[in-house]
C-alpha cells in the first residue's frame, strides 16, 4: 500500500518518517497526478486556512473529494481533522471541508499557541499503555455524529475518532516518537 501525504503545507516530513518507521512507503501529494498514485491519504497538521486555499489552486479539492467518496482511507491530524470534518464552527466563510466524518469542530478551540499542551492518552483498541500526545492550537470536537467511534478523550472531549476508513486526531501523532496511531491507520486501511 502506498500512502500519500497531502504536501501543500504542514508537517509532511514527520508523517513520512513515521510511515518509514513502519516500513510503509509514502508519497507527497501536491497535484492530482500524485493523488492518482496513492491508496490512502494523510492530511497533516498545519494551517487549515492555508491548506484550504491551496487545495483549490492545486486542483486537488475535487479529486480528493471523489476519492474519499469512493472509500479511500484517510487520516487527518489537527488541521487535517478540520479538513475532513462535516462541520467547521467559526471557520472562514471560504473554508470548505470534505465532510467525511460526522464531527463538528472548532478551530483553535483550546486557545492560542501558549495554550498548547502535552498529555498521556489511553486509547481504545491500542495496546501498550498510554500514548504521549502533543496538542498545538488544537481543534476542539464539539459534537459527534452517528457512526463515529470515539477512541480517546481529554476532559471528556473526543481527540481521536474513527468513522469507517476515516481516522482523525486533534493532536499530532507525527510529532511524538510513537508510531501506534499510524499503525492503527494502516491496519484499518
Amino acid at each position, binding site marked *: 500500500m502506498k500512502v500519500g501525504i497531502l*504536501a*501543500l*503545507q*504542514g*508537517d*509532511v*516530513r514527520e508523517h513520512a518518517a513515521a510511515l518509514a518507521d513502519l516500513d510503509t512507503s509514502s508519497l507527497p501529494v*501536491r*497535484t492530482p497526478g500524485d493523488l492518482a498514485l496513492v491508496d490512502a491519504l494523510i492530511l*497533516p*497538521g*498545519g*494551517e487549515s*486556512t*492555508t491548506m484550504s*486555499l*491551496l487545495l483549490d*489552486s*492545486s486542483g486537488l479539492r475535487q479529486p480528493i473529494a471523489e476519492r474519499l467518496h469512493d472509500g479511500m482511507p484517510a487520516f487527518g491530524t*489537527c*488541521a487535517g481533522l478540520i479538513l475532513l470534518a462535516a462541520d467547521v464552527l467559526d471557520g*472562514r466563510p471560504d473554508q470548505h471541508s470534505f465532510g467525511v466524518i460526522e464531527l463538528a469542530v472548532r*478551530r*483553535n478551540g483550546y486557545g*492560542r*499557541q*501558549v495554550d498548547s499542551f502535552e498529555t498521556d492518552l489511553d486509547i481504545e483498541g491500542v495496546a501498550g499503555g498510554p500514548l504521549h500526545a502533543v496538542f*498545538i*492550537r488544537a481543534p476542539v470536537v464539539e459534537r459527534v455524529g452517528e457512526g463515529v467511534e470515539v477512541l480517546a478523550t481529554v476532559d471528556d472531549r473526543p481527540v481521536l475518532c474513527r468513522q469507517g476508513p476515516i481516522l482523525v486526531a486533534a493532536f*499530532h501523532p507525527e510529532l511524538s516518537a510513537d508510531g501506534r496511531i499510524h499503525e492503527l491507520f494502516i491496519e484499518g486501511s
Partner: protein
Amino acid sequence: MLRGGVIMDVVTADQAKVAEDAGAVAVMALERVPADIRRDGGVARMSDPALIEAIKEAVTIPVMAKARIGHFAEAQVLQALGVDYVDESEVLTPADEAHHIDKWAFAVPFVCGATNLGEALRRISEGACMIRSKGEAGTGDVKEAVRHLRSILGDIGALSRADSAERYGWAKRLQAPIDLVQEVADTGHLPVPLFCAGGLATPADAALVMQLGAEAVFVGSGIFKSDDPARRARAIVEATTHYTDAEIVAKVSRGLGQAMRGEESSKVETRLADRGW
C-alpha cells in the same frame, strides 16, 4: 505548524487580512517593515500593544511579534499580550550587547535568527523553538539569505560526516554546547525547524531557498513594498508549496508588477545580520 508555509510581515490589521487571504501561515505584527526601519533610522523597538492586539483580532492564523535582542521585558509584554510566537530579532535595535533572552523562562515559543550553525545552536541552547536564517532584512536582495542557509546546512552536512573525536573540535569551533553538536551530528538536522528570512521578494526567491533546504519562509518588506501585495503574497505562497515545480512557479510569477525596488545587500550601511552573538 508553520512548515512549508509563508510568514508575512504586516503593519496594519488590513494588511494582516490580505496576508491571511493570500494563504499566509502566520503574520509578523510590526510597526515598520525592515525596509522602512532602514530608511528612517533611529531606534527600532517592540510594536505598540494596541497594534498587535488589532492584528490579533483581525486574523485567525498565528500572530508573531518582535522583541529586541536581549530585551526580556519586551518579550514578557508580548507573552502577556498572548502573541503566538516571539521573534527575538536583529531587525530591532539590540538591547543587550552580550546576552540574548533566556527563552526557557517563557511559555511562548521563540524564533531567533542565525547566520551560521554555531549561532543557531547557541539560540537553541537558550530555548529557541525555531531558527530562521537571517539574510539581510529590508534589502530585497536574497544573497545573504542564501549565504546563511548554505552555511548552516553545509556545516550540518560536514558535521554529520565528522567522526566522534572531531565532534569536540566542532563544538569548540562553533562555540556551541557539545550535546547539541552531538545531536545534529547523529540526526543530520537541527533539533528545531529551520526557516529562511531576509531579502526574499519574489516567488522564485521562495522556491530557491525551499530547494536549498529551508522548511518555511519569512517575507518581510517584499510583499507590502511591492506594486500588488495581494497577488504577490498569493504567488509566494504557491511557490513555497510547489517549489520543485518550475511550471507552477513560472505561472504564478507572471504579471505581478514591480517587486520591491530593494538595495544590494553589500552596499547597505547597517548590516542587521551582524547583530546577535
